[in-house]
């Protein structure tokens, strides 16, 4: 029982981070139908920048991790401008998949050359202490993820639904031609979606294995933010359950297999709805 509770709590913590990152995918997909396939590498980059700032520049963690968010957010602008804008015009082409994959490969290889293959751990500002809840021991550094992720989620929701930028984002998602006619440059709005998505990747960075969040976005149905949050949490918990009760070796394999099975049964994802094609 204590083990189960521990697994659930840890899973919830990791899952909320997944949800945050996966929301970055969803954001751009909703706004112009593209997904940044290099999001995983951006997460990694966020982690490495945070590590570098903490370890070598000796900045406090909070500053480093926000700086990483901003840096990756800026990279998001570049990605939109170079890898998305030209290719997103043709809705039937998947060239943007290839171009963003290429971006990811470049980031990965350059980062490898810069930082080497070593695994780096950033010490959590809350330390390595364990908190006991009903007999279950959970790391503080895991538990703290839940409120932090929630804070960012809340901020995002506020931005999306209450600010005029959010309104433009939603309007662009709905009808890009109409928003252009209203005198708003839809390219700028798409760029904003990419900045936000980059920031999310940056701040969520380092703690995620790179390609993992991709599958979260897939399972959840890319056009449903709610689904992504739920599956993010679900996958986080599921991953730890598999690792604890089956074997840590199999967690990736099983998660990917699940992704294929789910897409097999429901091609639009778990929560996505099929759009009617107009003839």
């Amino acid at each position, binding site marked *: 029982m204590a083990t189960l509770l521990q697994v659930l709590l840890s899973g919830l913590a990791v899952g909320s981070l997944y949800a945050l990152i996966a929301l970055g995918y969803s954001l751009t997909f909703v706004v112009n139908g593209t997904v940044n396939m290099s999001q995983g590498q951006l997460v990694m980059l966020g982690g490495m920048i945070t590590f570098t700032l903490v370890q070598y520049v000796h900045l406090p963690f909070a500053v480093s991790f926000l700086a990483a968010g901003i840096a990756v957010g800026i990279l998001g602008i570049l990605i939109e401008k170079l890898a998305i804008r030209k290719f997103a015009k043709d809705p039937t082409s998947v060239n943007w998949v290839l171009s963003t994959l290429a971006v990811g490969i470049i980031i990965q*290889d350059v980062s490898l050359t810069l930082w080497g293959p070593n695994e780096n751990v950033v010490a959590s500002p809350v330390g390595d202490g364990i908190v006991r809840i009903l007999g279950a021991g959970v790391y503080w550094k895991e538990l703290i993820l839940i409120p932090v992720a929630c804070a960012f989620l809340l901020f995002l929701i506020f931005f999306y639904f209450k600010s005029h930028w959010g309104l433009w984002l939603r309007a662009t998602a709905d009808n890009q031609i109409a928003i252009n006619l209203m005198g708003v440059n839809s390219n700028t709005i798409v760029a904003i979606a990419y900045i936000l998505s980059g920031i999310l990747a940056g701040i969520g960075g380092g703690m995620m294995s790179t390609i993992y969040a991709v599958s979260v976005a897939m399972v959840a149905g890319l056009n449903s933010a709610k689904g992504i949050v739920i599956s993010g949490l679900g996958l986080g918990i599921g991953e730890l359950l598999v690792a604890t009760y089956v074997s840590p070796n199999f967690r990736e394999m099983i998660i990917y297999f699940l992704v294929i099975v789910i897409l097999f049964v429901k091609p639009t994802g778990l929560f996505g709805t099929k759009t009617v094609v107009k003839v």
Partner: protein
Amino acid sequence: MEANLPVELQNRRTFPGKYVMIGFICLLLAAGPLFISTYYVNLLFMVGIYAIISVGMNIIIGYSGIVSIGHAGLMAVGAYTAAFFNTHFGTPFWITALIGIAVSLVIGSILAIPTIRAGGVYLSMITIAFGVIIDEILIRWTAFSGGPLGISGIEKPAVGSYQFGLTQVYYLVLIVAAAAMALVCNLRNSVWGRSMLAVKQNVIAAESLGVKPFNYQYAGFAISAVFAGLAGAIYAHANSFISPDIFGFQTSIQLVLIVILGGAGTVWGPVLGSFIVVILPEVLQFDHLRLAVYGLLMFLVLYFLPKGIAGTLADYMEKKKAPAESPADRHSIPLEQLLRAHDAAASSGTLLSLRNVNKQFGGLHVIKDLSFDVPASKVLSLIGPNGAGKSTVINMISGFYTPTSGEIFLNGQKIDGGSPQDMLQKGIARTFQHTRLFSDLTVLENVMAGMSRSHKQNLFSALFRTAGMRKQEKQIAAMAHAYLDLVGYKGPRHVKAGNLPYGHQRIVEIARALATKPSLLLLDEPAAGLTAGEIVELELVIRRLKEAGLTIILIEHHMDFVSRISDKVTVIDYGRKIAEGTADEVKDDPNVIKAYLGEEEMPNAENF
């Protein structure tokens, strides 16, 4: 490059120079081992291995538009299966290769189902996920795969007691690669190739011709799995050693890069791409940042050479030298063979009836209790103001929309709710309000694509270009010419349809619809955008078809044209029928005038 040309045209252009050149290249490649060191022979061998897989991937990327980023996984399946059987049971290469192909085909076919069903973004992600799963299995399932260390000591291919050396293996790869290219080239110039490209370029139009997208994409995926499995098996035996990292995500990316760099959908593209991608890093002597270079290369190709090297060259050649148009292969085919035999008894009655048909999109009630009859061998015009629901009616009759309620009868048989393919089978063909030609197929091939349903070929005869298949292709081409003659098309026939002027596109689309041998033809605004002269010609064509027994439903806004040609006019407004009769009767109907011009007795009319 020749892939872009239709069959009979290629045959005509086979001047000896071309064969001499191909023969020369083959000879050069075959003589290679005599002049160059084993290091370079080994590189050429790798080029060949990649060429075999990418020629297969070209079918799905170039012809079907399915970008798979997991084909290294299928290659691994072939390689490991072959290696397993060889090292455990001593099975010789020739048998393990077949087993490898079989297993890869089975797994590829299973993978193809969710991949094709998902489509779009999900498609690429499923294939990535597949590659990751295979990689994980290879690392974990030690009993089968030897884990991260892989399998070593795989026997070289042998004939009797004679063991193949590098040179012999290289020749083997060369032959297999050439055979793979020939097969794919054959496939391109068959019903299968045309249908695949049709689905890729315009899935809605393809469905309107009765083509089932899934079948063709599935077949393409299966063939590519066979090639990947075969290449894997050859690689395993030739290299004697395999490990999981050979077949990782990086290899899958390389394969995609090969196809798009060389030119997706071209015959030589994959070979060209393999050369560049395999040789380039060796020439540059890169140790670091090799992947980054691939990424950068991919980026540059997408930006500056979206059609790849071979595709760009082919376009350039086409611009420079327009293919010759020769009327030699046009035989006059009697009208009865071109159009569906028309039933004298049925032609007196009603061909199609709608009974209380309703269509709702969510809360929007688009068609309300619509009923009308279409007399056989007559022209019925469906008119009404913009947004009246005319195209929705056509979409329901042709199976693209399902009526919310009500019934549609064809020859007394209830047909509503069928798919576009079902409707086509029953003899309903259509054109589209905005023309939907397959822009990268030639004009002639567009019309030939209309016969995909009636002239089936099995995959085997298409791949191997059997005598029967060649005869059938000739017949299809001749028929296609005849359909173009029938609609009075006077433009070039061997140019890509996307390059045609608008008026020609409309006419070709009608020819393509006719090629399905319909009894009912639905024309959605055929005169829109045509010049006055072209409209007169269109009128002649429609009359000719009507006289041959075809029934036609016409949506049109040119009222002169409608009055001249229609036997019956049905007017709808806001999804409701408001008038019906001859053109003259309808013209004076107060309801119609009201619908088009608004209320006559508007109090402030003069203010407008």
